């Protein structure tokens, strides 16, 4: 970042030969993102029960992927950069899924399951 090389022909610091994206591609991604924003707002008005959040998150994930793939240039990036991207997502999933599964199952500990051999514990719930 500190090297300010201006001499033509001198490959300056941090340069990798990223292809220059076409304006048409960038504008198309922008249009898709706007369309998805309207779509997600419209779908949220429809009663889908539990599926509302699933659809909303799927649309958000699609939008985020578009931003990462084209705008952030993952499409043109090295395998190592892509690996970093995926690693970030995996760690995020570990964080959220383990926290969520802990909290959402805390009440389960002492409940007798239907298949439990301890019939008295099962019947006492009724």
């Amino acid at each position, binding site marked *: 970042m500190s090297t300010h090389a201006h001499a033509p022909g001198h*490959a300056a610091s941090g340069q990798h030969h990223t292809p220059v994206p076409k304006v048409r591609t960038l504008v198309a991604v922008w249009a898709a993102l706007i369309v998805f924003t309207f779509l997600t*707002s419209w779908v949220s008005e429809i009663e889908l029960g539990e599926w509302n959040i699933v659809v909303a998150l799927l649309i958000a994930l699609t939008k985020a992927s578009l*931003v990462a793939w084209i*705008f*952030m240039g993952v499409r043109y990036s090295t395998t190592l950069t892509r690996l970093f991207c995926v690693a970030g997502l995996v760690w995020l999933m570990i964080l959220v899924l383990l926290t969520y599964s802990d909290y959402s199952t805390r009440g389960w500990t002492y409940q007798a399951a239907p298949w439990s051999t301890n019939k008295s514990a099962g019947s006492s719930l009724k």
Partner: protein
Amino acid sequence: MLGMWTFLITEVLFFGGMFGAYAVYRNMYPGAFASTSRYMDVVLGGTNTAVLICSSLTMVLAVRAAQLSKRKDLILFLILTMIFGSAFLGVKAFEYHSKWVEHLVPGFGFQYEHAPEYLHPAQLLFFLYFCMTGMHAIHMIVGLGLLTYLLVQAVRNQYNEYYFAPVEMIGLYWHFVDVVWIFLFPLLYLIGQRH
């Protein structure tokens, strides 16, 4: 560049912690969380989403201009990105002000008359709302500072096809902040809209 990606992963986990807290509390108090959606302005939230998407487009066009050594385009697109970013913060400030006027700031005279049974859990959501959008807004302000730096350097003709890494890196950061909002918008504004 890889360093920037590494930093962004730590940022993903930073925001991920708040998203995790949101998921847990939403699961604990679904009714209370659904009851707050009537206070979220979908039109303002959606407008801000569109504004941020536009700013991402101008940012990527700025990177492209730098790659092609087009100094005037670079300056133009950096200024446009800053205008969109400031517009986002302006709308956000307006929303915060409405929340303050409606007594929806947790801990500061919070009132919840339409559903008093949710007085406490609803404050949790508003607390998360202010934490998540507040941290996001701080990231936007930092981004605007970085863009100002880029603009000064661009005016001084520091970037060209051989050296544009700072534009690219700050671009990555800017898009990341956009991605965070892409998730915040449905979670905070859209879920539970029908109730």
